[in-house]
């Protein structure tokens, strides 16, 4: 702050207010009454605050703490604000704004100093300036290595693969393998490849919905003739929009619905999206029923599961 405006202000002997100066009067018409009301409000505020202490001491219900403290602090605050508004000098008072800008000479002098010291003194040594700039740039780039690169592994192929393998048993969240007789027509269960039902990554990446549409083999798309044995179809449970679990099954529409943004997928038609923001079908897991009647995976998914990303072709 420049000194000039303060020099103007401080030494000036401001008007000495007398106690009958209207500016010094409170806003309240009847200050004594207002004071009493405020005091009463603050008194109840104190009661509330004491109530909080009592509630704490006796370990009262959770809401009692907040209620007593809230009422107490609210009334106390109301009192203090009302004191300021109604009983302190109502004013209004005025203060001059001091100009932010300096004089033309001060501006010139600063600009001249920047130009001379920057362009003149620093600019004279172009080599050193360049080398210093290069050094700082190199430091910035190198410093980014630990700050960025150390934070995590590179994606590599992790997004394109899941833990499903040829022969993986489809197990539910408790690890029980699904048998061909387990689901009635219209039934649905969330399954994982055996051995991954407890792992966090397994839950996040491998989660698959198994739905029984009929009792006959079911073909959802041309080329998937063997993928739907005994009316069972399995789709990735990761929504192709943002990766929420597609957790709702509309049995009558034979559609999977994502609760996050309401994308709908037609289960009978390769889970192509029929509604909502999802751009792609849910990948279907090829499955088969083994000799003992257990449902197992033919292979991993044929395409990456979950939402889209740059490297996904």
């Amino acid at each position, binding site marked *: 702050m420049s000194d000039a405006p303060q020099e103007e202000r401080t030494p000036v002997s401001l008007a000495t207010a007398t106690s009958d100066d209207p500016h010094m009067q409170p806003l309240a018409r009847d200050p004594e009454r207002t004071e009493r009301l405020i005091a009463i409000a603050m008194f109840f505020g104190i009661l509330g605050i004491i109530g909080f202490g009592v509630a704490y001491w006796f370990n009262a219900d959770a809401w009692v703490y907040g209620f007593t403290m809230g009422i107490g602090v609210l009334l106390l605050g109301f009192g203090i604000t009302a*004191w300021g508004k109604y009983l302190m000098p109502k004013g209004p008072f005025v203060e001059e704004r001091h100009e932010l800008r300096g004089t033309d000479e001060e501006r010139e002098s600063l600009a001249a100093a920047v130009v001379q010291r920057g362009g003149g003194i620093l600019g004279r040594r172009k080599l050193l300036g360049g080398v210093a700039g290069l050094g700082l740039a190199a430091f910035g780039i190198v410093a980014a290595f630990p700050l960025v690169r150390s934070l995590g592994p590179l994606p590599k192929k992790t997004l394109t693969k899941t833990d499903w393998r040829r022969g993986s048993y489809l197990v539910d969240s408790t690890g029980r393998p699904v048998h061909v007789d387990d689901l009635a027509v219209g039934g649905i269960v969330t399954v994982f490849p055996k051995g991954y039902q407890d792992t966090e990554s397994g839950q996040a990446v491998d989660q698959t919905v198994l739905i029984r549409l009929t009792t006959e083999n079911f073909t959802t798309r041309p080329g998937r003739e063997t993928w739907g044995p005994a009316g069972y179809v399995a789709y990735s449970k990761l929504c192709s929009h943002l990766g929420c679990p597609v957790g709702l099954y509309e049995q009558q529409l034979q559609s999977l619905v994502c609760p996050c943004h309401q994308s709908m997928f037609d289960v009978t038609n390769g889970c192509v999206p029929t509604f909502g923001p999802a*751009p792609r079908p849910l990948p279907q897991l090829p499955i088969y029923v083994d000799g003992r009647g257990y449902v197992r995976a033919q292979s991993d998914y044929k395409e990456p599961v979950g939402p889209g990303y740059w490297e996904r072709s």
Partner: protein
Amino acid sequence: MSTTSTDNTDAKREAFGPVGKIVGELDDRLGIAKGGRSLLDKIFPDHWSFMLGEIALYSFVILMATGIFLTLFYVPSQSIVVYHGSYAPLRGQHVTAAFASSVDLSFDVRCGMLMRQMHHWACDIFVGAIVVHMARVFFTGAFRKPRELNYTIGTVLLILAIGNGFVGYSLPDDLVSGTGLRIAFSITESVPVVGTYLAFFLFGGNFPGTAIIPRFFVIHVLLIPLIILGLVSAHLFLLVRQKHTQFPGKGRTETNVVGAPMVPVFAAKATGFLFMVTGVTALLGALAQINPIWLFGPYDAAKISYAVQPDWYMGWLDGALRIWPSWEFVGFGYTIPLEVFLPAAVFPGVVFGICFAWPALERWYTKDNAMHNLLDRPRDRPKRTGAGAAMLAFLGMMFIASSTDVLANYFHVSLNGMLWAMRILVIAVPLLTYPITVKICKELQAVPEGGKRKRANVVTRTPEGEYLAVPAVSRPGDGHVELDAEPVPTFIEFTEDSGDETEGSSEEGVRRVSR
């Protein structure tokens, strides 16, 4: 101190007793006297809309106080523990330490539930107050020269507040917050070229991993709060340096500030208001349940609950994600998930970009490069007001779009109908809002005394059956004539027994005033 006042004799200075001594000693070392007096006298203009920013500031104070309490109990770890707390339905379940500690601090720490709920409510109030404060600044033109920088800082603060709200909301590791994290991962992944790298660096690998909760914890309690604290300080410093704006009125010019002095009037009002905001937050925390994580249960990547809703300030982005068409670009061996990248990254970028650019845009459009310390009434700037209203309408429609499923259910219309209705409304409502707002502004300009409350009439019937309408006698504020503003006086001269506050002054009609 260069005192010239003749009153200020040594004898008089003695009268200030120990305070005078302390001020003297401090002034010798810190030089406080010179600026100190003008700081006490600093004038704050008075208008209800100026307290909106105060609400934001006080919510931030509450956030820090309750937040520090929560960090003493919260465990930022995704390692699996068995829950043994007092909430029976979860007992014996394998949950993350983050979730278990969040439930524990709610049920097994005395006052913990109140602190958690107050923290969450204070966050919603914080962001809300910033938004309303920003709207006030926008509609009254307070962002104009010389305050563009402070406006920019405020906008950055809004972004940081929203960001930290989301990060904090993710920490309990419950089913809803975990779903939010999944969506955050997918949005990061959607960035062209570097998306998967960004997502893997942020989460320390593929989703969910075990790094995100500890990382978000540090971001939530240290990194962003530190930046917010620094920027709030800068915001307030610039406010003091440039002085507050004021509405035009009696004796108010571009070169002065009319209002109440900082000490004691403004300080009393502000302190009381801090308590009032705290009180309301405590009442909300006590009586209005928020984010009951024990009902949602721990996060399980394969589970989800219906009608998943983020906090209110994320609603506009969620709405955009819902109604955006499912356009994905696939070609040249690459994929650009435009259905995610555009609504979740580009769209907020454009909205905040407009916010940042507005002062410059308006300066360019109006060719107005003058200093402005007097505020506009919104009606006097119909185009700006219209544009602001249209933006709010646009964001409001996006917000409503984030509950298409709930609305479709409630109104018994098809989800498809709701979706298309929102797609149309998001465009149509702002387009209609602009001309309607401009028209209202112009009408209000034309009405003398427009916007002021009309005085009520008291209708009486005389014994003869005649009806008379007489304007009502008084309203609060009637008869209160605003005086001409004066500089804050040095001190008050008391008659006779000065400093004594007993009633009964020697002069008739003179009220005794405490110093």
